[in-house]
């Protein structure tokens, strides 16, 4: 088991964002969290990476407890994170943005990672020295994704990677995610617009009101998503 979340509780002040949430992600699989706005998908991702404190429950990564570790130690343990809303460092160059995901790798491995990512996304080489804030939304999403991939993480957390993107960018990002799958990377992703994500995932969970309501194979999730109008 790559990631095991048991009875997780997250509260923002008096508001409960996650209630008794339990999910499991096996090594090498891609798991999708589906749900409407406020369902708790991003809170779950943020709790796993350590951006929000947990009030109860446990998070295990590769057999080790994560929930007591600082955010940076979780990232260095092998978790890559691409946040919702394409949060890039706007004044930093594209190259520095991408390499900021590989702080702990050392200069030589950083260079190799960047060369590999430039093969995957030629855009990165073309715009390497341009400030990331000057890129379009889709291009910024590519930068955020490349940044999350630059440390060759064992587990990749993708929070709404297709949000607000044109179909051409959705196709490119889907292709990049497929390449990560081929490398054996385990992926946990959230998506409101479930249609493109369903093509990539192997299993899924449906969330609502801070709880996991259903789980199943991707075919089952597609039916549920259709019934609950997520597609």
């Amino acid at each position: 088991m790559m990631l095991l979340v048991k009875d997780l509780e997250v509260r923002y002040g008096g508001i409960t964002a996650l209630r008794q949430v339990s999910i499991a992600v096996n090594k090498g699989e891609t798991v999708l969290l589906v749900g409407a706005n406020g369902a708790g998908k991003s809170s779950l991702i943020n709790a796993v990476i350590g951006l929000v404190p947990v009030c109860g429950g446990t998070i295990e990564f590769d057999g080790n407890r994560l929930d007591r570790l600082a955010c940076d130690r979780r990232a260095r343990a092998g978790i890559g994170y691409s946040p919702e809303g394409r949060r890039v460092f706007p004044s930093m160059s594209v190259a520095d943005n991408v390499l900021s995901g590989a702080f702990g790798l050392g200069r030589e491995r950083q260079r190799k990672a960047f060369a590999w990512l430039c093969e995957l996304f030629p855009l990165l080489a073309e715009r390497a020295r341009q400030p990331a804030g000057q890129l379009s939304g889709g291009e910024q999403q590519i930068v955020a994704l490349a940044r999350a991939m630059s440390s060759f993480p064992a587990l990749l957390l993708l929070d709404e990677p297709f949000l607000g993107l044109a179909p051409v960018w959705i196709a490119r990002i889907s292709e990049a995610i497929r390449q990560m799958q081929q490398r054996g990377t385990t992926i946990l992703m959230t998506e409101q617009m479930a249609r493109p994500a369903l093509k990539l995932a192997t299993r899924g969970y449906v969330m609502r009101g801070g709880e996991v309501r259903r789980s199943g194979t991707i075919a089952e999730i597609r039916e549920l998503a259709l019934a609950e109008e997520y597609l």
Partner: protein
Amino acid sequence: MWRRARSISNVVGLGEILSVVVLALAFVIPVASDSPFTHSVANQTLIAITATFSVYIMLRMDLLTFAVPAFMGLGGYAVALAGLRGGVTDAVALTVLSFAVPALVALPLGALILRLRGVYFVLVTFVLTEILLLVIFETPGLTGGSNGLVGMPPIDLFGLSIADNRQVLAFAAGITVLAAIITAALTRYYRQHFASIEENEVLAQSLGLVVWRYKVIGFVVAAGLSGMAGFLLVNMLLTAHPTSFSPISSVNYIAYAIVGGRSSILGPIIGSTLLVWAANIFSIQGEYSQGLFGLLIMICVTLAKGGIVGTAILLWERYGPAWPWGAARASGLAADGARVRP
């Protein structure tokens, strides 16, 4: 040739190279001028530049520090005590001492207070200077209390006594160049780390950056540089006095950094030079001097929100000819991640 220039500027940074070259020109002043006024103002400028480098380092991590006078005081008093009580006059040893004492104090202190953000950090650094002043006043046996420490022996460098104004100025120029090299090395080596902390600390942490470690490194080096500025001040006055390190002087160093521009290491140099010279020229106007000084700061901040250097880079990028080896920012004139835009 441009390719070679570009590769050098990529590694070292054009702004960093220019800053060292510009400061090295200060060695000419003691030779070129006989005027005691010029020597005095040049000395004050070099001290201000050295102190403002520490504000610049902290601003690179989006931290506003009011602790500069506190660390200047630690460095200055450490040097004065070593000279008066220990008989140490060796300039190299005193320089190391003036850097090491505040840096060692900043190390545990930084680990504690750098977890604070925004206004809380500002407040704590301001209080720190007040506490230091209190300690100085309450320990007259060690620090001379409100009388300060007077009668420091002149320092010597490799056997040469640094006693007259020209030598003191040349020594100050040397220390300021050293401070510029330390600042340049730190901010270039950790440019990616500092830039990501400045832009989005939480995001940087989620990407695996141990934010507090780099903040502590920056804080410790900034404290050391402040200590070196304190040494220069004490060496110029041959006195360590509490009024030299008043908390309100931290506002001046912040103004120098903001007016010069926080986007490049050239900012503290230009801001300090302009404002120190302006303050001295305005002082001739007596009662209007403070008002004129304030007016100048208001004009600079209103017309050049990115500071003088930031605005110059912005104007160059917008209207100037193409930079020979890429955009000004990309060539290292402005620090990566630094906000040159208002």
